C-alpha cells in the first residue's frame, strides 16, 4: 500500500495536465497562437513575392520621365523600390473624340483605371495627378526619374560625353568594409527577441495564473484538506509545478515548432536556421525561469482564500513577469545596463538569450547567467514551498506573508 513520492508527484502532475488538456480556453488560446505564428510567417512571404503594378498615363512631354521611372522600377536600383510600371498616353486610343468637353483628358484617364497621370507645365515642372493619393513607391520612382531626366538634359546641354553623363547619374557606390562583420541574418534579431519575449510573457502569465487558480480552487473547495491528510504538502506542490511546467514548455515548443514548420514550408530556410540557432538558449532559459517563479505563483494562489482574491495576490507576480519582458524589448543597445540585466535573475531568462541573439554576449556568459538563475530558482522554490505550506490550509481568509512564513516553518 505504500506509495512512493515519485508516484504521488506524478499523479498530481498528471491531474494538472489532464485538466489543462480538457480546458477549452487553453486549447483555444493555443490554437489561436499557433495560427497567428503561422500567419505571421506565411503572410509576409506571400506578399514579398508580388512586385506592385502601376499604370501611368503620360502626355508627350512627360513621357521620358514616365519611361525612366518604369526602367528604374524594373531594374531594382538600390535605395529605390521595385515596381512594374506600364506607361500609356493620356488620351484613350480606343475612344474617339472626347465625349464630354467639360471633362478634361486627365480626368478621363484617371477614370479609366490609370493610377496617375503625368504632365509637364509651362515652366517644366512635372505634375503628378491622381484621384485620392499617389502610391508611395510610385511617387518615389517618379521623383527619382524626374530628377534623372532633368540632370541628363542639363548635362547634355553642357556638352558632357556619354561616359561623363553615366558617372554623373550613376556614380560608383562606396564599398563597405566590416572589420567585425555580424552574420547575415534574414530576420532582424530584435524581431526574434520580441517574438520570443512575447511568447514567454504570454506563457508564463497564463500558466502562472493557472497554477495560482488551481491552488485556490483546491482551497476554496476544501479538497486540499483531503489531499493534505494523505500527501505531504510539498509533494503536492511539486506535482502541481511539474505538471504545469511540462505543459508550458510543451506549448512553447508547439508554437515555436509550428512557426518553424510554417517558415520552412514557405521556403524560408534561412529564417528556420537563424531561429533554431538561438532558440536553444531561449528555451533553456525559459524552463529555468518558469521553474524559478512557479512555486511563487502557487504561493500567490495559496495566500488567497477565494478566486476573487487572486487579482491582488498575483499582482506582484504579474509585475515580475511584465518587467523582464519590457526590459528585453525596450533596452536594445548594448551597454552596462543591458549586461547587468542579463545577469539579474528575473530579467536574465530573456535578456541573456537576447544578447546572444544580437551577437553581443560571449560564449561563456549564458552559462554564468544560467547558474545564477538556477541558484535563484532553488532558493525561491524553498521559500515558495514554505509559504505554500504555511498558507494552503488557511481557508478562512486571505493569509498574510508573515503569517504564512511562520506557519510554514512549523508545517
Amino acid at each position, binding site marked *: *500500500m*505504500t*506509495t512512493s513520492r515519485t508516484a*504521488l508527484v506524478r*499523479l*498530481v502532475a498528471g*491531474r494538472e495536465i489532464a*485538466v489543462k488538456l480538457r480546458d477549452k480556453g487553453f486549447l483555444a488560446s493555443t490554437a489561436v497562437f499557433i495560427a497567428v505564428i503561422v500567419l505571421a510567417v506565411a503572410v509576409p512571404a506571400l506578399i514579398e513575392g508580388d512586385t506592385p503594378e502601376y499604370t501611368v498615363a503620360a502626355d508627350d512631354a512627360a513621357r521620358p520621365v514616365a519611361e525612366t521611372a518604369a526602367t528604374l522600377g524594373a531594374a531594382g536600383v538600390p535605395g529605390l523600390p521595385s515596381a512594374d510600371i506600364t506607361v500609356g498616353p493620356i488620351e484613350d486610343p480606343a475612344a474617339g473624340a472626347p465625349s464630354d468637353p467639360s471633362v478634361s483628358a486627365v480626368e478621363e484617364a484617371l477614370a479609366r483605371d490609370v493610377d496617375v497621370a503625368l504632365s509637364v507645365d509651362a515652366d517644366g515642372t512635372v505634375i503628378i495627378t491622381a484621384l485620392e493619393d499617389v502610391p508611395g513607391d510610385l511617387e518615389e520612382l517618379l521623383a527619382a526619374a524626374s530628377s534623372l531626366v532633368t540632370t541628363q538634359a542639363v548635362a547634355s546641354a553642357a556638352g558632357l560625353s556619354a561616359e561623363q553623363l553615366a558617372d554623373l547619374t550613376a556614380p560608383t557606390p562606396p564599398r563597405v568594409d566590416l572589420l567585425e562583420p555580424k552574420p547575415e541574418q534574414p530576420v532582424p534579431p530584435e524581431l526574434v527577441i520580441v517574438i520570443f519575449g512575447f511568447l514567454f510573457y504570454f506563457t508564463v502569465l497564463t500558466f502562472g495564473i493557472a497554477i495560482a487558480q488551481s491552488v485556490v*480552487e*483546491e482551497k476554496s*473547495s*476544501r*479538497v*486540499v*484538506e*483531503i*489531499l*493534505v*491528510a*494523505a*500527501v*505531504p504538502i510539498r509533494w503536492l506542490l511539486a506535482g502541481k509545478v511539474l505538471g504545469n511546467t511540462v505543459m508550458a514548455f510543451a506549448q512553447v515548443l508547439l508554437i515555436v515548432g509550428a512557426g518553424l514548420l510554417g517558415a520552412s514550408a514557405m521556403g524560408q530556410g534561412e529564417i528556420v536556421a537563424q531561429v533554431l540557432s538561438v532558440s536553444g538558449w531561449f528555451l533553456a532559459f525559459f524552463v529555468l525561469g518558469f521553474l524559478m517563479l512557479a512555486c511563487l505563483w502557487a504561493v500567490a494562489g495559496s495566500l488567497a482564500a477565494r478566486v476573487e482574491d487572486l487579482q491582488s495576490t498575483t499582482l506582484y507576480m504579474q509585475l515580475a513577469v511584465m518587467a523582464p519582458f519590457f526590459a528585453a524589448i525596450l533596452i536594445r543597445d548594448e551597454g552596462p545596463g543591458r549586461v547587468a540585466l542579463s545577469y539579474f535573475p528575473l530579467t536574465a531568462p530573456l535578456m541573456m538569450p537576447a544578447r546572444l541573439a544580437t551577437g553581443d554576449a560571449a560564449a561563456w556568459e549564458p552559462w554564468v547567467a544560467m547558474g545564477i538563475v538556477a541558484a535563484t530558482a532553488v532558493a525561491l522554490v524553498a521559500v515558495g514551498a514554505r509559504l505554500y505550506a504555511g498558507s494552503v*490550509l488557511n*481557508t478562512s481568509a486571505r493569509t498574510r506573508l508573515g503569517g504564512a512564513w511562520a506557519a510554514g516553518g*512549523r*508545517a
Partner: protein
Amino acid sequence: MTSPSLQITGLTHAFGDRTALDQVGFEVRPGRLTGFVGANGAGKTTTMRAIVGVLAPDAGEIAFGGRPMTLEVRRRIGYMPEERGLYPKMKVAEQLVYLARILGVAKDQAQDRADGLLEALGLTDRRDDMLHTLSLGNQQRVQVAAALIHEPDLLILDEPFSGLDPIAMDAMAERLRERADAGVPVLFSSHQLDLVERLCDDLVLIHQGRVVAAGAARALREERAGRRYRVEVGGAPAWRPALAGMTVIDAGAAGTLVDLDETADPQALLAAAQAAGPVAHFSRTLPSLADLFAEVVR
C-alpha cells in the same frame, strides 16, 4: 488479531489567544460508532483536523493501534472534512479514482471500487457528470464514497449527516454501521442528537475545548440517570401517588413521572401503583442525549 483503536491524549491547541482544545483525550474503539457531540465552536472540527494531520496541535498525542500518526498511518484514514472537499469541475467517477490512486490504490482496483461505491450509493448514472452539477445531497454521497474508496482502517467524518434527507441519512447510517461491523473505528460529529443517540455505541461530549463526558453511550446515560421512574397504571392514566420523599413531575397519558429522593424506596412506589390498578409499565428513566448534553454543558 484485535483491531486497533484510536487513542487521543492531552490534545491542546490555541488559535492566537483563544484556546480551542484543552487536554482533550478519548478513545475511538474498533467496531464501534463513536458520536462526537458538542456545540458550535466546541472543538470538534479542530480535534478531527488534528487527527488526520491537517492541523498540527500545540501539544498532545494521537496514536492508532499504539503507533504515532505517521504519513503511512494517516493514509489509512477515511476523512470527510466539514466543509466537504472535492473538485467541482471533475467528473464524479474520475474524481474518486484520482483520490483512490492518491491514497495508494492501484488503477484497476480504484476503478472497480469507484463503480462499486457509486452503485451502492445510487449514483451510477451520474458517474460521468461534473460534480458541481449534482444536488448537494448527491455531492455528499460522493463525498462519502471518497472517504471509503481506499477501504480505510479508520473513519473520521465531520458532520456526515448534515444536509441529508431522511432516506439518505438512513443509507449513510447503514454505510457507517457496515464499516464499524467490519472492525473499523468510526468517529463522526453531529448536531442531530436524536440521530447520534439512536446510532452510537460510544459518545464523546466536548464543551469549550474540553471533553466533559466520554464512554459507552448506555453507561453514560445510566451514570447520569437520577432516581426518576415512569409508571403506567392501567385504567388510571393520571394516577398521582402521594408518598413521602416522592415528587410527581408529570402525570398523563404517557404515564406518571416520579422523582424519588434519597430516602424513598422504588418498591414502595411499585406497591402503591399495583394497589391503584394493573401496572402496565414500571422503569427507571434514562436521560436522553439532549438531557445529558444540556446537563454537562451547563
